[in-house]
């Protein structure tokens, strides 16, 4: 089954990449945005597997986005891969410090602390004139392998980048969740006392997972910034983090691929709900979540699991 999911990611990536040039623009955009979102959500899923709900992944989503913006605007960096890498390095460094505290907390306390840290970043950026305050700013066009593609071509490049990164991370995460460390998350969720008595530090397991989630959040934020060409402090606002949790619940945590399907579905619902009900689209999302919790408490993926069983 592990191979089927990994294979699925590879096949999907190849198919989506090949189809890229022929897709209608709105669909390519939707797929790229979903891929970026899925990366962040898969970080949330990694934490959820350890029994932890982060309401603050917006922190790393925002850091990843602003790394792209600041790198291009103030540091003269334009290479998309380099900028994404910068975001990941900054995010993991921040997570390495915050994680020391957070790894000691569970349940609502973990959730509230993560939210608090992301809101601190929101506050800092909102107060900073140089970073465009609450409006944010447009990012400089990125280059790929030293080439600055024209606007049309750039969109396709970014689409490919999103698909490739999302699929690669998905495939690796799928392996990770079935590995010794991956099961360590299930173990922490199940019984921390037992983990301790198996000679392993539950804190350390949570810490590692928090770093992974931070890296994924940053990648998703960076890609989102590249797609939209704009960053703003809203990326760190708690409702953004709430959306990530929403999508994670929508898909379920039993298989990492669920995060990807849920992210696409979420963007689709959001787009159509926004189009047909511009003032009440959140209500549509709320109803969807309600239905999921009532009828599929383990997320959409439980449909697939049920069919197989």
């Amino acid at each position: 089954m592990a191979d089927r999911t990994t294979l699925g990611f590879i096949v999907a990536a190849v198919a989506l990449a090949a189809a890229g040039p022929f897709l209608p623009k709105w669909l390519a955009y939707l797929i790229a945005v979903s891929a970026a979102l899925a990366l962040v959500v898969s970080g949330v899923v990694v934490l959820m597997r350890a029994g932890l709900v982060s309401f603050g992944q917006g922190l790393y989503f925002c850091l990843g986005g602003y790394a792209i913006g600041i790198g291009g605007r103030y540091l003269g960096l334009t290479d998309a891969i380099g900028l994404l890498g910068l975001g990941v390095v900054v995010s993991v460094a921040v997570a390495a410090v915050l994680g020391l505290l957070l790894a000691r907390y569970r349940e609502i306390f973990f959730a509230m602390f993560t939210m608090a840290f992301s809101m601190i970043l929101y506050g800092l950026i909102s107060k900073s004139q140089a970073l465009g305050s609450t409006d944010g700013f447009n990012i400089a066009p990125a280059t790929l392998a030293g080439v600055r593609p024209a606007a049309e071509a750039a969109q396709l490049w970014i689409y490919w980048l999103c698909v490739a990164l999302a699929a690669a991370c998905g495939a690796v995460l799928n392996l990770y969740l079935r590995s010794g460390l991956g099961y360590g998350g299930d173990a922490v969720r199940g019984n921390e006392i037992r983990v301790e008595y198996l000679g392993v530090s539950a804190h350390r397991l949570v810490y590692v997972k928090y770093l992974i989630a931070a890296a994924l959040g940053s990648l998703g934020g960076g890609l989102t910034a590249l797609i939209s060409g704009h960053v703003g402090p809203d990326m760190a606002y708690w409702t953004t983090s709430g959306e990530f949790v929403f999508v994670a619940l929508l898909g379920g945590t039993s298989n990492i691929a669920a995060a990807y399907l849920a992210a696409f579905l979420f963007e689709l619902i959001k787009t159509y709900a926004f189009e047909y009900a511009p003032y009440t689209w959140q209500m549509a999302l709320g109803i969807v979540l309600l239905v999921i919790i009532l009828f599929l408490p383990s997320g959409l993926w439980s449909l697939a699991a049920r069919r197989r069983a």
Partner: protein
Amino acid sequence: MTPVLETRGLSKSFGAVTAAADLNVRIADGEVVGVIGANGAGKTTFINMVTGYLRPSAGEIRLHGDDITGLPPRRVVRRGVRRSFQVSQLFGELTALENMLIAVSMLGNEGLTWLKPLATERFVREATGQLERFAIAEHVHAAVATLPQGVRKLLDIAMSTVGAAKLLLLDEPTSGVAVDEKLGLMNTVMGAVRAHGAACLFVEHDMEVVERYAPRVIAFYDGRILADGPAAAVLADAEVRKHVIGAELHRRGLRERC
């Protein structure tokens, strides 16, 4: 010879309550010791202190002569002290095999893998072997939350005794198990323990079980050690009969009346 476990003056108080006072225990390599005592006598407090779950208020704990006082449970476990729990501590949503695989991988010395699957051929072999030793291999794919109490207790003990252990501390291995299953369960556990070769200290309320499996018995009463010696002598001791076994008979009487 240096005993595998030696505690000197081990004490624990919670405010004005003394849970354990001046516990001096020596256990030799491979020795099997039964621990008896009424509820609140300090048996679990003793195990909690030895495994680092509780920090003693005074006294020291030596493992083969090395001071391990104050080490956290994971370090004590790494040094070869293992415990099982009065209420089995398992990963409820996972299967028995997954529980055992996690135990095998975590107690192993190679560290946890990042990408290599947990269920490698070697680990699965090791895990099923351990399940077989405890006669619960038939439940390998069942989610442990759905298993009967006796099987859960066995799994709990089986997970504790993976790999190289020097000392096993079994906290009431037969609690919560039906009376007619107790001896069968203890037979399985003690068979596996003897095959393992580690020293074993088990807490037990049923005197019949104690007599059958423990050559030596330590009786706890009110946080202190009331008697320590050959099982027959301790169980015949007047003080023990008054404070421990009497209480047990009373307890059993209550249960039978219920």
